C-alpha cells in the first residue's frame, strides 16, 4: 500500500482535532471551539474520501492496510484495513460528524468545546472500530467509544439523563466483557495471534464455536440492539441531546451489526449457521413486536428509537439468511438507516429546540407555520416508512427479496413492516404536523433557518440519491460480501 495512511488519518484527525478543540477551554471561546470543530469535522470527512475513490471493488482483500507493532510482547499490532463491508461506514461516520457539529452549533450553549470534542473523538474512535484488524485494537476502540457517548448523554442530556447513561453504559459494558473472554480464548487457540484475519482461518470445534458465538452475540446484540436486550436504547435516546441521538442511531447501532460480520460469521461459521434460526426469529420479533410498540409511543423520540430497533431487525435478518441479496440488503439498510434515523432525530431536534417538548400531544398543525420543515420531515418520514425512491426502501426491499428466496414465511413476517412502518411513522406525522394548530406555542413557531435548512437539505439529498441510484453503494460490497458468504459456507469442523 503506497500513499498516505488514510485510515490512520480517518481515526486520528478527529481525535487529535477533538483534543485541540478541548484545549480552547471555557465557553468564553465557544465561537472558536465551534469553528475549529467544524474545520476538524470537514477535514475528517475529506480524508475519508480517498477510501472510496481509491477503493478497488474487484477484490475482497483488505485495503489501505497499515500494520505496526504496538505491544510486541503479546503480538498486538496497530493493524488497520478496510474491505467492502466496512469502508462505507467510515465515510458515513465522518459525514454524520459534520451534521452533528452543525446541529449542535447554536443549540449547545454550555461546555461547547467539551461537547464538540466529545463528538469528534467519538467519531475517530468509531472509525477505529470499523478499520481495526487486530482484536485488542478493536476492543480498545470498542470500549473507548462508550465513554464519549456516556458523557454526552450524562452531561448534555435531559432530566433523567443519569439513569439513562448508566443503563446504557452497564448494558453495553456487561455485554462486551464476555467478548473479551472470547477474544482471549481465540488468542490462545490461534497460537498467540490477535489478528482477526488469522482467526477467520482458525479451525474450531462445535463446542468452542457455540460458546464463542454466544459471547459475541451478547456483546453485539446489546449494541444493535436486538430484542430482548434493547430496552436501553429508548431511554438513552430520550435523554440524549439531539447530536447524541443522531450518532447513537446513525453510527453506534452499526457497531454491533458490524461485529457480527467481522467476528461471528467468519470466525464461527458453523455455530452461526446452527444459530441462524434463532437469530432470524429474534430479528422478526424485533421487526414486528417492536413495530407494534412503536405504534403506541407518545414521545416522538421514543417512537423513532423503537423504529430504529425495528429497522435494525431487518439488518440482523439479512445477515443470517446467508444469501447475497439479503446480506447486501442488510448493509444497505445500515447505511440508509444512518441517513434516515439521523435525519428523523434532527427533525425532532428542530421541534424540540423550539418547543422543549417531545410529546406528540403537544403538537398539531405544525405544517401551517413551518412549511419548509414539513416538507423535509415528510420526506424523511416516508423514507422511514420505506417508500421507494428513498434510501429506506432499498435495504428493506433487498432483505425481503432475500427472505423470499430463503423462506416464504420469513418474508411474510418481514414484509409486515411495510404496514407497521407506515402506520407508526405517518400516524406520528399526522398528529404532529397536520390538523389545526394545536396551541399558542405551535402558532408562534418559526420555520427552519439557514443552518437547519443546510443539514436537512444535505441529508435529503443523500436519502434521495441513495434511493434513486444505489448502484455505487452496492458496487463496492459485492466482492467482500460474496467472499464472506463463501467463507461462511465452508465448515471449520
Amino acid at each position: 500500500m503506497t500513499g498516505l495512511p488514510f485510515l490512520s488519518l480517518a481515526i486520528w484527525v478527529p481525535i487529535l482535532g477533538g483534543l485541540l478543540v478541548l484545549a480552547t477551554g471555557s465557553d468564553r471561546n465557544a465561537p472558536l471551539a465551534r469553528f475549529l470543530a467544524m474545520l476538524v469535522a470537514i477535514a475528517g470527512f475529506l480524508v475519508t474520501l480517498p477510501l472510496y475513490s481509491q477503493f478497488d471493488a474487484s477484490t475482497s482483500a483488505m485495503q489501505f492496510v497499515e500494520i505496526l507493532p504496538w505491544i510486541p510482547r503479546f503480538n498486538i499490532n496497530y493493524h488497520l484495513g478496510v474491505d467492502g463491508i466496512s469502508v462505507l461506514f467510515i465515510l458515513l461516520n465522518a459525514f454524520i460528524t459534520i451534521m452533528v457539529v452543525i446541529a449542535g452549533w447554536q443549540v449547545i450553549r454550555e461546555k461547547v468545546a467539551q461537547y464538540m470534542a466529545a463528538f469528534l473523538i467519538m467519531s475517530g474512535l468509531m472509525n477505529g472500530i470499523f478499520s481495526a484488524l487486530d482484536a485488542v485494537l478493536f476492543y480498545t476502540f470498542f470500549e473507548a467509544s462508550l465513554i464519549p457517548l456516556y458523557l454526552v448523554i450524562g452531561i448534555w442530556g435531559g432530566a433523567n439523563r443519569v439513569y439513562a447513561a448508566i443503563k446504557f453504559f452497564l448494558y453495553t459494558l456487561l455485554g462486551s466483557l464476555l467478548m473479551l473472554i472470547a477474544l482471549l480464548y481465540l488468542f490462545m487457540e490461534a497460537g498467540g495471534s490477535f489478528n482477526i484475519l488469522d482467526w477467520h482461518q482458525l479451525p474450531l470445534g462445535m463446542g468452542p464455536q457455540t460458546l464463542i458465538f454466544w459471547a459475541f452475540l451478547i456483546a453485539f446484540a446489546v449494541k444493535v440492539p436486538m430484542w430482548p436486550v434493547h430496552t436501553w436504547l429508548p431511554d438513552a435516546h430520550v435523554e440524549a441531546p439531539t447530536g447524541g441521538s443522531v450518532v447513537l442511531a446513525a453510527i453506534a447501532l452499526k457497531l454491533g451489526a458490524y461485529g457480527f460480520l467481522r467476528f461471528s460469521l467468519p470466525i464461527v461459521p458453523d455455530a452461526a449457521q446452527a444459530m441462524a434460526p434463532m437469530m432470524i426469529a429474534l430479528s422478526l420479533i424485533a421487526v414486528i413486536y417492536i413495530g407494534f410498540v412503536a405504534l403506541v409511543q407518545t414521545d416522538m423520540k421514543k417512537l423513532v428509537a423503537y423504529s430504529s430497533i425495528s429497522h435494525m431487525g431487518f439488518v440482523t435478518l439479512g445477515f443470517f439468511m446467508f444469501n447475497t441479496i439479503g446480506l447486501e440488503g442488510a448493509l444497505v439498510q445500515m447505511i440508509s438507516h444512518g441517513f434516515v434515523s439521523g435525519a428523523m432525530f434532527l427533525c425532532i431536534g428542530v421541534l424540540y429546540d423550539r418547543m422543549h417538548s417531545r410529546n406528540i400531544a403537544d403538537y398539531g398543525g405544525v405544517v401551517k407555520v413551518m412549511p419548509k420543515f414539513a416538507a423535509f420531515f415528510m420526506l424523511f418520514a416516508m423514507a422511514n416508512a420505506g417508500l421507494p425512491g428513498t434510501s429506506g426502501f432499498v435495504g428493506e426491499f433487498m432483505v425481503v427479496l432475500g427472505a423470499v428466496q430463503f423462506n416464504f414465511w420469513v418474508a411474510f413476517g418481514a414484509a409486515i413492516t411495510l404496514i407497521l412502518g407506515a402506520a407508526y411513522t405517518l400516524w406520528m406525522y399526522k398528529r404532529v404536523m397536520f390538523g389545526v394548530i394545536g396551541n399558542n406555542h405551535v402558532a408562534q413557531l418559526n420555520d427552519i433557518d439557514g443552518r437547519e435548512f443546510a443539514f436537512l437539505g444535505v441529508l435529503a439529498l443523500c436519502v434521495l440519491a441513495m434511493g434513486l441510484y444505489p448502484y455505487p453503494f452496492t458496487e463496492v460490497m459485492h466482492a467482500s460480501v460474496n467472499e464472506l458468504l463463501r467463507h461462511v459456507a465452508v465448515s471449520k469442523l
Partner: protein
Amino acid sequence: MTDMQKLYLLVPLAPLAGALLAGLFGKLIGRAGAHIVTILGVAVALAASVVIYQDVQTGNTFNGTVYTWMTTGNLTLEVGFLIDSLTVMMMLVVSFVSLMVHIYTIGYMHDDPGYQRFFSYISLFTFSMLMLVMSNNFLQLFFGWEAVGLVSYLLIGFWYERPTAIYANLKAFLVNRVGDFGFLLGIGLIAAYAGSLDYAEVFAKAGELAAQDMAVTGWPLITAICICLFIGAMGKSAQVPLHVWLPDSMEGPTPISALIHAATMVTAGIFMVARMSPLFELSDVALSFVLVIGATTALFMGFLGIVQNDIKRVVAYSTLSQLGYMTVALGVSAYSAAVFHLMTHAFFKALLFLGAGSVIIGMHHDQDMRNMGGLWKYMPVTWFTSLLGSLALIGFPFFAGFYSKDSIIEAVHASTIPGAGYALFCVLFGVFITAFYSFRMYFLVFHGKERFGANHGHHDHHGDHEDEEPSADHHHGLAPGQKPHESPWVVTLPLVLLAIPSVVIGFFTIEPMLFGEWFKGVIHVGANHVGLSEMAENFHGPVAMAIHGLQTAPFWLAMGGVGLAWFFYMVRPDIPAAIQRTFRPLHALLENKYFFDRFNEIVFAGGSRQLGKGLWKGGDQGLIDGIAVNGTARLVGWVAQISRLFQTGHLYQYAFAMIIGVFILLTFWFNLG
C-alpha cells in the same frame, strides 16, 4: 440514444420538471407561473405521447434500459421503458386526462392558498403514473406504484386542517400498504424463482414457473405469484375488502378525485394485471379469485351508491363498481376488454367528477345533492356534459361506455371459469344499479325542484366524523336567494373536451382494441380462454353492435334503472323515503357501508394499538425492564445490602470468620485427599 428514445424520456421528465419548478420555486414564479410550467410540462408529455403513438402504430416498439439501478447477487435491477401498444394507450389517457385536470384546476383552486403546491403535486403524480405505465420491469412498477400512492396521500390530505381529510389520507396510505404487502411478496417470489424482475425475461420463464411448487409452503408457484400481485391490485384499484379507502379519498379536492381516484391511479391495478397476462393466464385459480373479487366489488359497491347524498361520493361508489367491472374482465381473461373499459371509463368518469366539481363550485362548495335540483337552467354546459357522461357510464348504445361494458358482459357470458355464473349475475344486476344511482344523481342535481338556498349551512358528510368543524373556505353553500352560476371557461372547456371521447371513443376503438391486432403480442390469452375470440366472430362492426345492443338484456336493465330513478326522484319523491323507513335495517347496512369501516377501526386499528400497548407495558416495561434489567440491579443491590453486614469493621469478627473458613477448607482438604 435515438431521437425516439429521447422522446420516451421526455414524456415523464417534462411533468417532473414542471412539478419541481412549481414545488420548489412556487413563491418565485407565482400562481400563474406555477400553472404555466406544469401545464406546459403535461402538454409536452401529451404531444410526445401522440408522436410515440404514431410510431407504435407503424410497428415500432421498444424495450430497453435507462440506467442500472443496482446489481446484487444474480439480480440486475434497472430503470427502463417498455413502449408498446398497451403502454402508449395508457400514456395517452394519463397525459390527456392530466392535462384536462391541470386546466380545470386553474378554475377550481382559484382561491386556494395552496395553489402552487397543488399544481406541483398533480404534475408529480403525472410523472409517477407515467413511470408506472412505461416501466419494463417490476421494480420500477413498484416505484411508480408507491409514488402515485404518495401523491394520492398528499392530495387527499391537501386540506390538512380538516380532521376528515388527514384521517382519510392516512387510511388510504395504510390500506394501500396492505395491498403492497402482497404485491411486494409477489415481486419477491418472481425474483426468487425467475431470477429477474424484467418483464420480458419473466414472461419468457412463465411456463417454467407454472410447473413449479413453492419451497416450504408447497403451493403452486404461479398461483401464489398471481394472487400476491393481485392483492397489490386490490389495494390500488380498491377491490373488496381493500376498497375502504376510496370513498374517504373524496376528502381531497375534486380535480384529484377525477385524475387520481377515478381516471388513472386506481386503474393501475387493472393495468398491472393486464400487463401480467402471460402469468395470470397460467393460473385458473388466480383468475377465479380475481373474478369473484371483481364481481363482488362491481355489484355490492354499486348498492352503496344508491344511499349517498354527497355528490362526490355517488361518483366515488360508481368508480368502485366500474373498477369491479374491469376486474371481472380480467378474471375472464378478457384483458383487452378490461383495458378498453379502463380507457373509456377514464374519460367519462373524469368528466363526471369534473362535472360534479363544477356543480360544487356553482353551489359554493355545498356537496349535498338534497340542496340542489334544477341546476340545468343555471349551468347548461355542466348539465349537458354530465348528461353525456352519465349516458356513457350506464352503457347507452353508441356511447363509449356501452362498447366497453357490453364487451365485458359478453365476455363473462362466454366464460367457463369457476365463478363466471356469479359474475354474470353481478355484472348484469350491476347495470341496473349503475343506471339507477347515476340517474338518481342526475335528476337530483339537475332537474326537479330547486332546493338550494333554503337549507343554508346544512351539510352531511355521511362519514364517520360528524364532529368536523366547517372550515371557512369550504362548504359554504348558497345563501338564501342566491343562484348557482355556470363555471368559468377553464372549468367548462375540459368538460367539453372530455365529453367528446366519452361519446365517441368506444365507437372508433372497439374494433382494433378488442378484436383487431392492436394488443397482439402484448396481451396473452391462453388457448383454453376463448371468450373474446368467440365474440370476435360475432362482431360485425360498432354500428351493428350498438343496434344489436338495443335488444339485449343489459340495455333494458339500464333503461329500467333510469326509469325507476325518474319515477322515484321526479314523479314520486315520497317513495324512496317510504322504502327507507320500511327497510330500515337494510338501509342501515348500506348507510354504514356494510360495516367495513367499523370493523377495521375496531379490529385492526384498535387491535393494533391494544397489542402495541400490551407489548410495551407488559413486555418491555414489565418483563424486560421490570424484572430482568431493574430486577438484576435490585438483586445486586440486595446482595450488596447483605454483604455489607459482614463488613463490620470489628477485628474479632473478621478473625472469627477466618478461623471458620480455615476450618471448612481443612475439612474438605482432608476428606477429599
